[in-house]
């Protein structure tokens, strides 16, 4: 086994349940990775998409806490919120996630941090949504073409 410093993100879309799993390794101990997920000042530096400005309304990352943040570009603004169901320092964050454009939809997210030795950490982030349609929209989100255009193209290709 060789350890290299960069491990590209892996993505799994499960065929049986509507979830997406992301696995990524970091050259930093768990405590640091955890802190970068809980300290609002650090979160704004990496969580938002590059072309959007992220503003945190509140981010109270502890069991029973909640969060809300906004991504904006020019005069468009997208809000996201949820609550923290279980937060165990350096180990686990279980939270809900709602895009305010679809307030009735909610994803259940679990972030697990594992110590893989040599001061390195493996992050596994699982998002479970309530339908395959939501999952696929989630996967297709942020695409240049946009979800609707994507579906239209797929429709065309599939001859629907």
């Amino acid at each position, binding site marked *: 086994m060789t350890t290299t410093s960069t491990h*590209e*993100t*892996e*993505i799994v*879309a*499960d*065929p049986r349940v509507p979830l*997406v799993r*992301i696995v*990524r390794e*970091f*050259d*930093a101990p768990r405590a*640091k*990775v955890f*802190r*970068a997920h809980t300290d609002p000042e*650090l979160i704004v*530096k*990496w*969580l938002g*998409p*590059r072309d959007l400005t992220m503003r945190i309304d509140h981010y109270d990352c*502890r069991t029973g806490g909640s969060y809300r943040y906004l991504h904006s570009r020019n005069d468009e603004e997208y809000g996201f919120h949820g609550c923290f169901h279980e937060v*165990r*320092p*350096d180990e686990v964050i279980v939270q809900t996630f709602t895009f305010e454009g679809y307030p009735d939809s909610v994803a259940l997210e679990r972030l697990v941090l594992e110590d893989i030795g040599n001061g390195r950490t493996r*992050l596994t982030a699982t998002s479970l949504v309530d339908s*395959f*349609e939501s999952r*696929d*929209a989630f*996967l*297709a*989100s*942020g*695409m*240049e073409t946009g979800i609707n255009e*994507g*579906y*239209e*193209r*797929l*429709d065309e*290709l*599939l*001859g*629907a």
Partner: protein
Amino acid sequence: MPADALSRVFSALADPTRRDMVARLAVGDATVNELAEPYDVSVQAVSKHLRVLQDAGLVSRTRVAQRRPVHLEAEVFDLMTKWIERYRRQAEERYRRLDDVLRTMPEELPARPDHNPAPPDPSDPPPRGTSR
């Protein structure tokens, strides 16, 4: 329903045998018998896999003389992989920014109680992580 169509493509590609078949069809059209050859399964089982791929719009079958070769609808396949790849790339970009944040963070928080050389009270039971 477009979303159902997308789900069908996803689940069709979730099976390793079907992914392998798609990879081989990417090289060129093949008959069912040719596709069945490398696998330790019956031609019927391969036909079943093909039907799933066909229902998802990923492959089509045309009659050419006596043969009915299977053809990969490369555009549908490309669109799917592009969607997933794009999502993956976005996650990777995000985590590269996190890499940078982690690099610039101080090694340890100086004020963390577990780095305090003198324990505040030896009779204090919780050793770790119970309060923050």
